[in-house]
C-alpha cells in the first residue's frame, strides 16, 4: 500500500504569525540559534487502489491549498506493513 503526502506551506511572502509566536517562545526553552519558524500542514491521502498522483494534485490545488497564499508539494510514501512498522518502532526504541 502507498499513501500520498501533501505538504502545504504559506508562501514565503505571506506573514506567518503562528511561526513567529513559536520562534519567540524558543528562547524560553533556552534555544537561541533558530532564526525563523514557518508552520505548514501535512495531509496524508490513502487511496483504495493504486494512488493517483494527478488526482491528488487536483485535490491539493482545489481544496487542500489556497494558491493565493499557499504552495504545496506532493510525494508518495511507501507504507511498510503494520507488523514490520511496529517491529521497526520497537527496534528504534530499543536502540534509544
Amino acid at each position, binding site marked *: 500500500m502507498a499513501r500520498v503526502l501533501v505538504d502545504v506551506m504559506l508562501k514565503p511572502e505571506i506573514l506567518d*504569525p503562528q511561526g513567529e509566536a513559536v520562534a519567540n517562545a524558543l528562547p524560553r526553552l533556552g534555544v537561541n540559534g533558530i532564526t525563523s519558524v514557518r508552520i505548514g500542514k501535512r495531509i496524508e491521502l490513502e487511496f483504495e487502489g493504486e494512488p493517483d498522483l494527478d488526482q491528488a494534485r487536483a485535490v491539493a490545488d482545489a481544496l487542500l491549498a489556497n494558491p*493565493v497564499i499557499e504552495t504545496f508539494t506532493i510525494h508518495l510514501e511507501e507504507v511498510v506493513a503494520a507488523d514490520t512498522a511496529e517491529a521497526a518502532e520497537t527496534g528504534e526504541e530499543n536502540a534509544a
Partner: protein
Amino acid sequence: MTARIGVVTFPGSLDDRDAQRAIRLAGAQPVALWHGETALRGVDAVILPGGFSYGDYLRGGAIARFAPVMETLVDAAKGGLPVLGICNGFQILCESHLLPGALTRNAHLHFRRRSQRLRVENTTSAFTGHFDAGQEIVIPVKNGEGRFVADERTLDELEGEGRVVVRYVDGNPSGAMRDIAGISNAAGNVVGMMPHPEHAVEALTGPSVDGLGLFTSVIAHLGRTAVGAGSSQT
C-alpha cells in the same frame, strides 16, 4: 413587492439569525437557505453570514465553498445576483474565487472583537448606495482570521477600480493589507467584508445603527433593477 433576501446557514454559522433580523428591520423578507440544498428559493439577494462554517477546518471557508448551495450561488452571483459575505461569508467568497485575495490569521494572533470605525469608499456597489463617499461608520468587528491579503498587483487593481468598499480607520484590527475591510467584484454585485453590519442595526445591542445601511442599500438597489429577476432560479 417586498424584496426577499436569502441567508445561508452552514453547519457552524453563527450570525444567520442576526442577519435575518437585520433584513427584517431594513424592510425586506428574510428567507432561510440551507447549505445542503442547491435551491435559492427565488431570492433577490443572498447573505453569507459570519461564524465558523464546517468548524473552519483546513481554512476558513475552504470546505463551505464546496457546499451544494454554493454551486448555484456562484453561478447566480456571476449572473448579477447581489451577494454580501460577512466575516466567514467573506472568506467563503474568496475561497470561491468570486472575490480576489484571501483572509489569513490576524498579524498579532489575537481574536479581535471591538466596535470598529470604517470609511465607506465605494458607494456604487449593490450594498453601499445609501452611504456618502468617505462617510465614516462604526460597525463591530470580531475575528481571528480577518487579515486581508493579496499580491501587490491585485491590491493596485482593487484600489484603481474603486473596489475597496470599506477601509479601517483609527486602527487596523487584523493587520489587513492597505487597511482593507471589504471589497467588491468588478460588477459591484458581490461584496465581502470582515466587520458585521448585522450587529449594528439596533441602538439597544449595537454601537450604532450604521449597519442597517448595507441592507437598505441592497433593497433600494433591487428596487432599481426589477425585483424578482431572481425568481427564475430554483
